[in-house]
């Protein structure tokens, strides 16, 4: 996927003017937050579970190597194979290799953000293999040559009309407008692909060390057909998704569904534990797990380690006023919203992604709803520190901050500045109490008036009052 994060501001401006996108974002805001709140309200122990989940994730991250090796050992015992991939390129090549060994022409895919991260679809196409997305949202995006704008509702930026149009154009059928009819048509188209596919690729929500199982959590059931029908099943997962036991997994499942969609439990929670055994009725003959690092192990032991607790529920973006205003594509890469603003700089570099961790008012809503209590505003601030240390912060901003800091640490000068600035503003707008146009502050006055000081500064007035009191 082409990186467009440096164009965040332009993309955001366009997004704000896009009537259809704004309508779609309105649907998002009207849906997820309310459903989550209701689900949380029905579960008095929710906050306690969040603490447990945070602590357990911290424990896992302290022993990540141990649990991953245990996971690998169990997968191998179950007859599967584990492939360790340090980079996105390693992962792509490994997957291609497996597909080639199977002489695969077509692969079906369950929804997976990691495969977006490693740009898998494009790579497979370039190498003569046709990937078919089977999650409805992803399927629509693939028809349109589009990318996800949200990690669990990938086509949230589209409206019914867009889907109707895409199906009509690509399926060569009469135009449908009823959502149920559209879904039936997609199902009909996909059914053939499920049967024809040589390889099925899914992601994983969790990897269970004690059993060597992977689990996917979906609401459509497409993932199940993707992983059970083809001869070969490839699970692509990032390394931080490992949990010690099945019981630990259930703790995260309880938090995940409620935080994501407000469901008590997702519709399909499907475990894969190796390839088909002799007495199994179905399942793949070959079972591969591709473990993707792609910068994650570099985060361990740093101020960004807490980000690896993320379980990809999307609550942070669902509640983020910035995401809600500009949508996911504005962020210019795979992961949008607050979690993306922390992850993206790690993966594509702070030089390219600096605008993302700055695109936050630090309002803290994301941290408030995070099921594993990731301090997202703090982590975004840490990226700003990296940006500042590396002198990537724009020169005018650095100059402004330096000047302000100089004033702030010289109280007498500061008083002189504040009283003069107050006086100047009162001269400019005192009659009305506000200024509508201020040359150096157009970022403010383009959109709103600038209220002017009501009189001399407090410090001036207070000193005058003290003098008065001392006299009398």
């Amino acid at each position, binding site marked *: 996927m082409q990186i467009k994060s440096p164009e965040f501001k332009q993309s*955001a401006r366009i997004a704000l003017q896009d009537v259809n996108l704004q309508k779609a974002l309105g649907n998002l805001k009207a849906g997820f937050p309310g459903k989550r709140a209701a689900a949380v309200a029905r579960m008095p122990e929710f906050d306690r579970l969040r603490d447990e989940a945070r602590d357990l994730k911290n424990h896992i991250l302290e022993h990540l190597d141990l649990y991953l090796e245990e996971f690998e050992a169990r997968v191998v015992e179950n007859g599967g194979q584990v492939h360790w991939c340090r980079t996105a390129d390693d992962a792509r090549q490994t997957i291609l290799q497996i597909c080639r060994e199977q002489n695969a022409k077509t692969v079906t895919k369950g929804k997976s953000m990691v495969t977006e991260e490693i740009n898998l679809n494009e790579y497979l196409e370039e190498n003569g293999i046709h990937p078919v997305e089977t999650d409805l949202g992803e399927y629509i995006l693939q028809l349109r040559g589009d990318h996800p704008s949200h990690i669990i509702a990938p086509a949230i930026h589209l409206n019914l009309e867009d889907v109707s149009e895409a199906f009509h154009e690509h399926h060569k059928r009469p135009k449908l407008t009823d959502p149920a009819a559209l879904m039936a048509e997609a199902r009909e188209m996909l059914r053939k692909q499920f049967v024809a596919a040589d390889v099925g690729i899914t992601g994983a929500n969790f990897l269970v060390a004690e059993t060597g199982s992977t689990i996917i959590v979906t609401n459509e059931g497409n993932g199940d057909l993707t992983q059970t029908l083809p001869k070969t099943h490839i699970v692509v997962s990032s390394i931080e998704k490992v949990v010690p036991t099945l019981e630990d997994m259930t703790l995260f499942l309880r938090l995940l569904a409620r935080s994501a969609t407000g469901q008590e439990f997702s519709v399909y929670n499907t475990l894969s534990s190796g390839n088909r055994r002799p007495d199994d009725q179905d399942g793949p003959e070959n079972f591969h797990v591709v473990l993707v690092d792609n910068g994650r192990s570099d985060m361990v032991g740093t101020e960004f380690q807490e980000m690896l607790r993320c379980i990809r529920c999307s609550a942070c973006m669902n509640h983020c006023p910035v995401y809600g205003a500009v949508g996911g594509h504005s962020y210019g890469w795979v992961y949008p919203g607050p979690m993306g603003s922390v992850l993206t700089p790690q993966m594509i570099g702070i030089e390219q992604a600096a605008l993302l961790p700055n695109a936050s008012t630090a309002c803290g*809503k994301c941290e408030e709803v995070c099921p594993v209590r990731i301090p997202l505003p703090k982590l975004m601030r840490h990226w700003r520190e990296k940006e500042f240390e590396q002198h990537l912060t724009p020169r005018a901003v650095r100059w402004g901050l330096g000047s302000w800091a100089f004033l*702030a640490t010289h109280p007498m000068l500061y008083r002189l500045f504040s009283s003069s600035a107050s006086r100047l503003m009162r001269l400019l707008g005192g009659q009305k109490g506000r200024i509508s146009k201020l040359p150096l502050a157009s970022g403010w006055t383009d959109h709103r008036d600038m209220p002017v000081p009501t009189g001399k500064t407090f410090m001036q007035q*207070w000193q005058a009052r003290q003098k008065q009191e001392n006299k009398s």
Partner: protein
Amino acid sequence: MSDTQTMPIKVGLFVTCLADMFRPEVAFATVKLLEQAGCEVEVPRNQTCCGQPAFNSGDKHNSRTIARQTIEALEGYRYVVGPSGSCIGMLHHYPELFTEDDPWKARAEALKARAFEVTSFLVDVLNFSGIQSEFNGKITYHDSCSGLRELGIKQQPRQLLSEIDGVELAEMQEAETCCGFGGTFCVKYPDISNRMVSNKTGFAADSGASTLVGGDLGCLLNMAGKLKREGREVQVRHVVELLADMTGTPAIGEADYDLGQPL
């Protein structure tokens, strides 16, 4: 507060740079409230800005320099109280700026333990319930993010406001959603900030309130500026102005008064 009548509580006022420059009445109202609650208020001389712009922009060196000065300026008071959840929240961040072996760490922790936003101080620390004020009209309350999420300020201002004679609180939709100010955010991302504040002013107007009240001047200047630009009737005031019965000054961004003071 019987014990406070014999032994006044010494409070250092953290004025905040926005109150100092844009709306001194907010600081005076804070002093009045604290005195009503039995405190002896002083204004520490060497205070300036809490350093939040540097802190939020990743400039750790300058954040630390400003923090050290502010810590020093605010030492020697039983409590430090200010009319802003955001600036007091910043004082609470100071310990993060120093390593464990730095002697400033303990001083930063000590300041954090003594620093309170004014409505939280009145309710949570002093258990104060002696508001003497009158305000006739319907108001709505904006929960500023830092106060709400860093300091747990939600009920305190509402409890105090409910003691005012004549006031009626009409909660707006999404009272807890950010207004889009965000310090330097509003000038770095003006288009997004504009959308956020427009949503906010819409909700405020829809609440039917004639006055929008909040506890942080940054947010209030932002929302008042937008309401004025949109030509809406809703007035904006800091919560302490209502609580201290000091609503004689024109609302934020208005000036229907005689410019009595010399410029």
